[in-house]
């Protein structure tokens, strides 16, 4: 295992690099919403690289189809979870940092104060907001 095989190791190294930058981004980005960019995009492609390398290493059809299925679900669940986390944080009233360098940022949602709008679209969120109000 000490030998370097480019076909197997390069995808794994690229994947590991993106997962590492995801961790760096999680620490360095200023707020939850920016961090979600790092966790959703970088982790998806990073794990894709690692899975691809693993599939090329194992070279058997069953491992290949299984890893393909894992990848498919990874591509669906990771970004949708990021969306759910962003929406949950917003509904709970966490204000996003907007604009850089002190200027006021663009906010077309009219951030906070309009959380009820979203809650109306989503009965579950409405229930949880009502429960919090009690």
């Amino acid at each position, binding site marked *: 295992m000490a030998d370097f095989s480019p076909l197997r190791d390069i995808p794994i190294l690229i994947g590991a690099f993106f997962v590492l930058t995801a961790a760096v981004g999680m620490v*360095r980005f200023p707020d939850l919403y920016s961090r979600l960019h790092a966790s959703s995009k970088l982790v998806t492609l990073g794990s894709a690289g690692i899975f691809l390398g693993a599939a090329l290493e194992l070279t058997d059809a069953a491992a290949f189809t299984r890893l393909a299925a894992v990848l498919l679900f990874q591509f669906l669940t990771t970004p949708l979870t*990021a969306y759910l986390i962003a929406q949950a944080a917003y509904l709970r009233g966490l204000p996003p940092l907007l604009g850089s360098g002190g200027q006021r940022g663009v*906010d077309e949602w009219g951030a906070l104060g309009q959380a009820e709008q979203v809650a109306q679209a989503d009965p579950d969120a409405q229930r949880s907001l009502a429960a919090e109000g009690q």
Partner: protein
Amino acid sequence: MSGLTLNLLLAVVWMLLAGEVSTRELVIGFLLGFGILALFPRALGSGGYVRRTLAGLGFVGFFLRELTVANVQVALFALRPHPPLNPMLVAVPLRLRRDSAQTLLVALVNLSPGTVVMGFSADRRTMYAHAIGNASPRAARDSILRVEDRLLRVFSPGPAPQNPSPEASP
């Protein structure tokens, strides 16, 4: 999906004619069958199926490119000393109506450069997204509308995509 059924049927017929039940013959039959469906769309009524399949393949290529750009961009932001994040919230008017299509759009937008979906308006006609690394809200909105355009091309049943370009929408 009658086009897909026809294509599978052609693949099975090919496998029977080849006299060998195997995945390899089935795949060859499927590809040949797709060629036949593409050559005679009028006679076989497969125009929509061929167009949607090609749009789907084009979409996969487009998506892989977007995903790569998105990752390199965020990775650079994570590593640069002073990343120009310029975070903003943008509102995007949607043309996709079906729930399943909107769910897919959320997943794809979260994987494309600079945008993460945060929520929908009550009537689900407007999507709100958190954007980083964009100079203007217009640029952020256009990048989301480009993804939606591609999805519309795959989902629309008509002979040609009947949707305005990102520049035409407000």
